[in-house]
């Protein structure tokens, strides 16, 4: 039996990940430490290295499939070594089993699911994963009718979209891009957010002149400054650093600010842990390092905290203001507009100022409007008087 | 010229006696040569040597006609020769090549040659005896003049099949002659250990048929006794049990260690059936030393030619194993 390749825990609290891509095909040689596959977790795409040297013997979880932390994704070993196909379903082993044991979707591979032969065949024919089907037969066996029901549900949900697509295709040629990997995760998370959060967006303008002046002495980005300012605002308004966990509001002691950036594989969230306790310079250095790693796809997210709040900069692309979407289960997201010279009234006179709109979307289920505006004002205050951030 | 004492058959001519001698000699030469080839690894199997017992098969089969049938025992090689099977044919069977009579399905001593009146015996000692009775009954029901001759050893006469078959043959008046080749050993167990009687022929009385003890080393005596029994069967008078007292000079099979008393083997070797007839032929001026030598050389030459030819034969196509399990192909059986 070769060395099993397992789904790593790439961040605290990570319970499942999606295999985005295998960089080697079964039969190819791999060296220990060499990049072997990409995993998508939360919003991050992480490159994972081979656990041993040898040949990639078998892939148990193909690209695009989700697996629990500790699940065997494949094996590395000597060519010809026998690997137990059945072992591919050894999902969670003792120490790597996530604490808390919250109910998760069954991420075990299909081989181990109890299913009648016809159910197995039908699921395969329809491209359905047995793991996603609830078994209603004796001892939880997935029956033929369970699969038929799953097929029916999928077809019904796809029906409207398909009809629209068909009309489109009749009119003109279209290109279809499969919704998978990070795109799929994005889609699901955005929809979840819009479906669950009572989101409200509120906007303030910030005079960025002081920060601009600061940048002439200390080379930091506007984003770093906003992260620092936000972290301080969050200290004052902890409700925006909270997450909603079903029936409870969870107030987080650590202020971990996520920064949404575009990377080679799409949107990725980098995290500055305990941002309120770091200097602006530290934050800036850390952020630059993470952005570089994200661009190279070599982000190591092990032991990195899950963000409690997110900052997103749309201004770099030229946007003036926008309504960012909360990254659930967080309760707020701060969007940065373009920093630009604008006529402003200062001491009764119209002068050329440097202004940026800060757009806060917050979950009105738990955040009061006054809290939200108060937070924005605090952030604005820090940015307009950077000394407060020193 | 059938007599009250069961002796029958026509008067044997000079030619008959020389031919009987030749058949016994051929059997001996074949056996000894095959054992050497087996030892050398040239043949995939040995045989159960009939050396010492040649007079039984030759004598019993010599006078049989084309309508008659025999089922040899595993040691009755002489039944094949006497019914006209060639050494090449039996070598083909031993090699299991495509020219063999069963095309490789079974070996020489379980071979059947229907066109020469030979039914294959099974590998179950005594199992062929009731089959012979059934064959005889069929001959009778079909109105054939044919008689069935069933060969078996002293060991088989202890099997239930022997007793059931003799009883059935007697009650059904089947035209069958039971030829027991009593070579005094059931493989390694002495006949005296396996049965409490001296003469197996005595068992016939229990089934209401004649039983005769015959000198199994005297081919003419075997011939005459068998012909008497065959005549009786042909006339519809029912079966006969002949017990031919004989002895095998070699172990049961090449791999068997010889544990029989050496002096017993020696004593029987003095009654070598081939030498006994040979002496008579010489005394009567029918076949001299030179003639015997030439005869043996001719047999050896045929044998050498046969092995060459047999070895040159192609082997059967492996797929032939599916043929003749049933009339239909095996896959037609569904499972």
């Amino acid at each position, binding site marked *: 039996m070769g060395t099993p390749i397992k789904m790593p825990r790439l961040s605290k609290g990570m319970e499942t990940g999606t295999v985005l891509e295998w960089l080697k095909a079964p039969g190819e040689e791999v060296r220990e430490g060499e990049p072997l596959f990409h995993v998508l977790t939360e919003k991050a795409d992480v490159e994972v290295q081979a656990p041993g040297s040898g040949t990639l013997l078998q892939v148990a979880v193909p690209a695009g499939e989700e697996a629990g932390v500790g699940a065997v994704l494949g094996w590395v070993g000597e060519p010809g070594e026998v690997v137990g196909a059945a072992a591919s379903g050894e999902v969670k082993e003792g120490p790597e089993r996530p604490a808390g044991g919250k109910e998760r979707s069954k991420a075990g591979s299909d081989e181990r699911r109890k299913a009648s032969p016809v159910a197995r065949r039908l699921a395969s024919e329809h491209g359905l994963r047995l793991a996603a089907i609830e078994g209603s037969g004796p001892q939880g066996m997935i029956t033929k009718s369970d699969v038929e029901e799953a097929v029916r549900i999928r077809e019904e949900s796809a029906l409207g979209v398909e009809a629209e697509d068909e009309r489109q295709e009749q009119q003109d040629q279209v290109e279809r891009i499969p919704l998978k990997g990070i795109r799929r995760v994005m889609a699901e998370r955005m929809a979840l957010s819009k479906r669950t959060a009572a989101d409200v967006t509120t906007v303030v303008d910030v005079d960025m002149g002081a920060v601009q002046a600061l940048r002439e002495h200390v080379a930091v980005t506007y984003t770093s400054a906003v992260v620092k300012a936000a972290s301080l605002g969050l200290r004052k308004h902890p409700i925006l650093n909270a997450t909603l966990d079903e029936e409870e509001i969870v107030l987080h002691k650590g202020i971990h600010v996520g920064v949404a950036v575009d990377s080679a594989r799409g949107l990725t969230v980098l995290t500055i842990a305990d941002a309120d306790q770091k200097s602006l310079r530290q934050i800036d250095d850390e952020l630059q390092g993470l952005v570089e790693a994200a661009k190279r796809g070599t982000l190591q997210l092990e032991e990195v905290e899950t963000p409690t709040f997110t900052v997103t900069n749309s201004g770099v692309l030229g946007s003036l203001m926008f309504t960012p979407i909360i990254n659930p289960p967080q309760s707020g997201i701060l969007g940065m507009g373009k920093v630009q010279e604008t006529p402003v009234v200062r001491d009764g006179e119209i002068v050329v100022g440097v202004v940026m709109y800060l757009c806060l979307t917050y979950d009105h289920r738990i955040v009061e409007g006054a809290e939200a505006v108060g937070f924005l004002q605090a952030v604005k205050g820090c940015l307009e008087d950077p000394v407060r951030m020193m | 010229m059938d007599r009250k004492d069961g002796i029958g058959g026509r008067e044997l001519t000079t030619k008959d006696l020389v031919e009987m001698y030749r058949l016994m000699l051929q059997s001996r030469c074949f056996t000894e040569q095959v054992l050497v080839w087996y030892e050398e690894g040239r043949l995939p199997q040995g045989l159960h040597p009939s050396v010492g017992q040649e007079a039984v098969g030759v004598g019993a089969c010599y006078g049989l006609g084309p309508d008659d049938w025999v089922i040899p025992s595993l040691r009755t090689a002489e039944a094949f020769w006497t019914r006209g099977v060639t050494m090449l044919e039996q070598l083909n069977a031993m090699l299991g090549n495509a020219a063999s009579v*069963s095309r490789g399905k079974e070996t020489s001593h379980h071979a059947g040659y229907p066109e020469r009146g030979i039914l294959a015996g099974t590998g179950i000692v005594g199992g062929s005896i*009731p089959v012979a009775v059934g064959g005889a009954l069929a001959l009778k029901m079909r109105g054939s003049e044919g008689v069935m001759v069933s060969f078996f050893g002293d060991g088989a006469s202890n099997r239930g099949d022997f007793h059931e078959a003799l009883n059935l043959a007697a009650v059904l008046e089947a035209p069958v002659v039971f030829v027991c080749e009593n070579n005094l050993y059931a493989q390694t167990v002495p006949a005296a250990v396996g049965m409490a009687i001296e003469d197996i022929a005595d068992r016939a009385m229990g089934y209401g048929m004649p039983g005769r003890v015959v000198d199994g080393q005297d081919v003419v005596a075997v011939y005459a006794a068998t012909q008497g029994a065959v005549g009786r069967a042909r006339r519809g008078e029912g079966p006969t049990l002949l017990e031919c007292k004989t002895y095998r000079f070699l172990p049961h099979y090449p791999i068997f260690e010889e544990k029989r008393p050496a002096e017993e083997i020696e004593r029987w070797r003095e009654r070598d059936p081939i030498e006994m007839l040979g002496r008579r032929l010489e005394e009567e001026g029918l076949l001299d030393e030179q003639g015997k030598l030439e005869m043996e050389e001719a047999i050896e030459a045929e044998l050498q030619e046969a092995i060459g030819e047999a070895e040159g034969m192609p082997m059967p196509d492996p797929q032939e194993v599916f043929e003749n*399990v049933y009339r239909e192909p095996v896959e037609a059986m569904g499972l």
Partner: protein
Amino acid sequence: MRTLRYNQALCEALRQEMDRDERVFVLGEDIARHGGVYRVTEGLLERFGPERVIDTPISESGIVGLAVGAALLGMRPVVEIQFMDLITIAMDQIVNSAAKARFVHDGALHAPLVVRTMNLGKGTVYSSQELEAWFTHVPGLKVVMPSDPYDAKGLLISAIRDPDPVIFIEHKALYRIEGEVEEEAYTVPLGQAKLPREGDDVTVVAWSSMVGVAEAAADSLADEGIGVEVIDPRTLVPFDRERVVASVCKTGRLVIVHQAVRRGGFGAEVAAAVTESEAFGYLMAPIRRVANPGVPVPKSGALHPPALPGEADVIGAVRDVMAYG
């Protein structure tokens, strides 16, 4: 159409074949003067005489061996072994002499005999064994197990005309069953199953006396809205695999019913064959066997329920496989 009992249908088959072909003869214990313990050979002695209707001594091995020899030399013997339990005595002749005759002679000779035998069902420990699986295991033998009078006649005629040795297994419980039987001689081909009940939900394969049990269960289950397809293979060798596979592809569920012991029974072979076939991908539930659980058939009726499969057992097995959606 005229009706006959199962044993009468068999008797008619023998009489018509003996009329048609003078090579056909019957032999066995108590079959001539007595006409057979269950009257299957009644009247044959009077019609055909003692040469062709032979009372034999109690020599099961001997008479089967004799039949093999007669068959090899051109006759068409039909042997009766009074109870199937007694066939154990004749096993060498069946397995070695009869089954392999065609093979060792490479087809130059063959042994077209029929061995008729019978299971008492609820007799004694030594007369109620269902041993068909033994024979299905032997290359060269065909195994026939008719379940009603029509098949009894048609299959026996086929068996007699068949060029290979046939083990023809009757059942005491069936002898008194009446059914329509054509007067003319006819054949039911070996290897063709029939479907006494058609249904879409569960396939029940049963043979011999269990066909009636399966039919009764199917009728009861029809009231519950469960459609049971009963397949009677009629012959186990050759076996109508295609029919069973096609049915399981339709229903997705299979129950096999036989009176014989489950362990090593022919039902295991049927189950294996189905899982090896394209029907595997249609199976919705485990295959269930209803069979003797592995005990001798006891004499006392009090002990029968667990030992002998009945309608309730079949219904239970069908409901069980229906639970798998």
